[in-house]
């Protein structure tokens, strides 16, 4: 910026004070603009009625052994399966195998018969088949993603195919024996 108004008569002291004042004022100005900008940006974050739906309660009572249901949570499908004893055993056997995404079955469930996971393939987001009795379940008895051929086992872990990670387990807790709260 070209040198403009010079003050011929003011001494260094005044110039120093003016610089401090200008610095302080500019600093406050920046703080002011930032404090104005933040709320505007924050309006784009999830609003209260969206956050209110960030948890759902699911009644597990009607689900029989060997049966799966799908619920929607935060816009995503969640697979809830009441596993048979055989499926649990099969899953525990898988603990010893060299897995792409190593995880023990016991670390993926709170109660062994209840498997709860987000039903989106970790490859590119399709919904794997295996919830219905008539669906293909893949080579490991769990779920099979038809888009690019990922196979998941009875614990929802990736065994074969392009998916990098196991089907994720959402945060949940047992409100009582028959009900879970997801989220």
């Amino acid at each position, binding site marked *: 910026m070209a040198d403009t108004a010079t003050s011929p008569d003011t001494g260094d002291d005044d110039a120093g004070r003016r610089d401090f004042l200008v610095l302080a004022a500019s600093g406050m100005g920046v703080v002011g603009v930032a404090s104005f900008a933040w709320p505007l940006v924050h*309006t784009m974050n999830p609003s209260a009625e969206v956050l209110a739906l960030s948890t759902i309660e699911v009644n597990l009572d009607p689900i029989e052994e060997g049966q799966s249901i799908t619920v929607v949570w935060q816009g995503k499908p969640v697979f809830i399966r009441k596993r048979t004893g055989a499926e649990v055993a099969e899953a525990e056997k898988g603990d010893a195998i060299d897995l792409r995404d190593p995880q023990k079955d016991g670390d993926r469930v709170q109660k062994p018969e209840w498997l709860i996971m987000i039903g989106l393939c970790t490859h590119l987001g399709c919904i794997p088949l295996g919830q219905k009795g008539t669906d293909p379940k893949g080579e490991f008895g769990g779920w099979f993603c038809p888009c690019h051929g990922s196979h998941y086992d009875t614990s929802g872990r990736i065994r074969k195919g392009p998916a990098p990670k196991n089907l994720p387990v959402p945060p949940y807790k047992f409100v009582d024996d028959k009900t879970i709260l997801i989220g």
Partner: protein
Amino acid sequence: MNTAPQWKNPVIRWVDERLPVFTYMDHEYGQFPMPKNLNYFWNFGALASIILVTMIVTGIVLAMQYTPHVDYAFNSVERIMRDVNYGWLVRYIHMNGGSMFFIVVYIHMFRGLYYGSYKAPRELLWILGVVILLLMMATAFMGYVLPWGQMSYWGATVITNLFSAIPLVGNWIVTLLWGGFAVDNATLNRFFALHYLMPFVLFAVVALHVVALHMTKSSNPDGIEMKGPQDSVPFHPYFTAKDAVGTGFFLLFFAFFVFFAPNFFGEPDNYIEANPLVTPAHIVPEWYFLPFYAILRSITFDVLFIPAKLMGVILMFGSIMILFILPWLDTAKVRSAKYRPIYKYVFWIFFIDCIALGWVGSQPPEGAALIIGQLGTFYYFIHFLVVMPVLGKIETPLPLPASIAESVTGGGGGASAGAAAAKMEKP
């Protein structure tokens, strides 16, 4: 051209050689000569552009959450107020910003009227300003419809119905505006599209307004041109600093309303969702339209072959159109009312007339209010069409000061002459 600055910073130099933004900014704001005798009424143009930017920014943020459909509009605004993070803040800023915009622009215009800023060579600057006013009014009118409250709906109905007064094609025009047989979803949707568009058109006209200003440079309270560097100071830092002070006070005023009286300028009826089958007891536009509303309703009698309704519409639009020709209506040889002993009073009478018309607009059009409205409308046009041309011819102006520098220091250049290091532009 002034001496172009030699930029030391290599990055700045690289950019500037290819797109001279930095030289441009230095020329238009770093060195630009401003009369040193400006008072705080010259802040209002800068304030108006700050509000414009604020309105655009808050408007876009609101548009992310608003639904322009008759079944959802009202509730989407309430959702913004209740569920969207800080939605209430953005909405209140936008709502009150509209009123602020008109307060600032009206003061800016009255400054122009008082100090003769519209006179040669600044006629086009003034005309562009009137265009900006019209765009503001269109934008504000459409914006008020969007929340889809009772006043939104009925105000839209009344004002769009005005166009039916146009002979022959009136009803066809109204149907085209509505997109139907009444104000309804088609109308709301197109008002939203246009309300989003207008501010950017406005922004372009503001840019032209500033370019025109930079051609003639600012006028000043004495109404005499700058003659040399002793009369001026560069815009930066003098007027960046002064405009910042004005902005601080303005923000205090604005913030007071946003945080402590957010519904002061509004109407309770607009918190009721629009109901086409129930008309509110009093349909009132927003305060900044009240004087024009008064003019519209003051014509209760047919004039020759022109029906009353049409005459009202003609005068209402006429009251703004007349501003376009003001530079030619005013015959005075001096600009500023400071040196026009009679016009000084005439100006204040006109000002009071505008305030009175504003009050009339808020009242039901009957009794004393109607009479005052009719007198006020009559005087409004008399002021422009009779008083301004005649006064310029018969008034003897006071002697003008020899120069701006003289009027600032009260005689002689002295030490202050050296203060302005900026070089004068040749017009």
